């Protein structure tokens, strides 16, 4: 018998609250081929930019005692290749695809989305104004409510689809940036991207990552996400998509209780490609055991 549990956002109903986070699921194609998309409400793609980006020099992944530092640097083949090669393959995904979009200058965001509008595949967009691993754009955009509002307004103008603005926990006020996104016409906010982190070899005094700092993610960060989801969901009416620190079904239910409409799983998906299935099963059984 089908379970009765449903979650919804952007006028669509899902049998799972789980979104696969940007950068940890590709475009969903590899996961689909392995049958690992069951349990996922939607896939959020790797960041797409106007021009191809080769990404940062290796090493790009460093594990620390209680988490992961990444310095991918938005490596992606650029919007032309995404339209030509990846989206046609992703057309067969069993769930919707949200395209994560990044840019070095404000105008790049609407420019990429204008191109993506040529395809029928995307369900919506996630506007990444919070990448910690790039010199231009990234955190600096997300930390400024003025820039967040401006980017949201520009995207709204060219997009026929709903979009979320992915915010940064690193600088500025995430609540002010969330309000700015809403004022600019965003249909959701994603709370939030990775935390700025760094690992130094004390013997040499050198950072292990070539750009020194990277994006830190860890199950230990869950309470930080819960707090930010709680505060932003009180401040805006648009849905809050939670991201950061999820590796158990309980974490998902906790973030939903704190105000999230949907919950993303990122780092844990790299460890467990079938995480969506496992976590959804866990969520359902917790809800069932809790209902009278």
């Amino acid at each position, binding site marked *: 018998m089908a379970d009765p549990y449903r979650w919804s956002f952007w006028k669509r109903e899902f049998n799972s609250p789980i979104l696969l986070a940007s*950068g940890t699921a590709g475009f969903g194609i590899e*996961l689909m081929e392995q049958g690992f998309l069951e349990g996922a409400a939607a896939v959020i793609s790797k960041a797409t930019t106007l021009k191809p980006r080769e990404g940062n*020099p*290796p*090493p*790009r*992944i460093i594990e620390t005692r209680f988490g992961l530092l990444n310095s991918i640097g938005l490596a992606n083949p650029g919007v032309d290749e995404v339209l030509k090669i990846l989206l046609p393959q992703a057309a067969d995904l069993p769930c919707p695809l949200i395209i994560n979009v990044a840019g070095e200058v404000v105008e790049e965001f609407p420019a990429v989305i204008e191109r993506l509008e040529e395809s029928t595949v995307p369900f919506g967009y996630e506007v990444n104004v919070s990448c910690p691993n790039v010199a231009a754009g990234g955190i600096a955009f997300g930390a400024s409510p003025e820039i967040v509002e401006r980017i949201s307004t520009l995207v709204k103008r060219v997009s026929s689809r709903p979009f979320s603005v992915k915010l940064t926990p690193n600088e500025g006020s995430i609540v002010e940036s969330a309000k700015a996104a809403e004022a600019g016409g965003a249909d959701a906010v994603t709370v939030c991207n990775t935390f700025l982190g760094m690992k130094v070899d004390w013997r040499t005094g050198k950072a292990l990552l070539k750009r020194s700092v990277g994006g830190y993610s860890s*199950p230990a960060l869950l309470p930080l996400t819960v707090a930010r989801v709680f505060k932003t969901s009180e401040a805006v009416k648009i849905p809050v998509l939670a991201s950061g620190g999820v590796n158990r079904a309980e974490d998902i239910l906790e973030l939903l209780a704190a105000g999230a409409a949907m919950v993303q799983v990122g780092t844990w998906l790299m*460890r467990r490609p079938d995480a969506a299935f496992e976590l959804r099963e866990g969520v359902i059984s917790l809800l069932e055991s809790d209902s009278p």
Partner: protein
Amino acid sequence: MIIGKEEILPGIFKFEFKVSSSFIAEAEPGRFIQLEVSHGPFPVTRRPFTISSTYGKSVEIIFEVVGRGTEVLAETDVGRSLRLLGPLGRGYLLNPGKWLLIGGGLGAAGFPGLTAKIDSGLLLLGAASRDKLLTIPGLETVAITEDGSSGRKGLITDLLGSVRWDSFSGIALCGPVPMMKAVFEMMPFPAQAITQVSAEARMGCGWGVCEGCSVPKAGGGFLKCCSDGPVFQAESIDWERCEGIH
């Protein structure tokens, strides 16, 4: 499930896992597995290990304890189950004839499986000392150690002068990056062209989605170690840019 565990050299372990028959069918030499080394959340990511060999319905890996992940793994006992993904990546492109295998330290861990698939081979094996020198059965072997505790004393490059490069139909090279780079640069061009290397990079996912495992590509850009490799044509790698990655 772990069905065998042996400390073959100090700090170097051989683990045997029970796997499915479809795993065995796909376990070509050079491919790897992603192993969840702990049941708890840390370490967060899996650890990659080359498939050393397969027997019946089991797969063997050989690993050295170098950090927390391998330490936790080494402490895990026979009978425990660990989640294992694979076989992943691309292995060696095989051809008939005699092969030259050049291994540095744990780089030779994948050679038993390769040995089983080639007609015949010569192994040049280097290590810091006899404590780090693996034994690869079934191959004519010339060993060299940095301290002279086993075989000749010196570096693996000291063995290259007497190699008759044109007598081999394929060359497999695996070891630390500086060693692979030095060997590759000493090879005559025709030998470079038939050399395949097994590269290493820190991995996130291991199945092609995170862009975490980049290896510098000859001519610019990057290759993905986990899905374009880990076995690559040696010529497709930009060895200059590989330095200092780990």
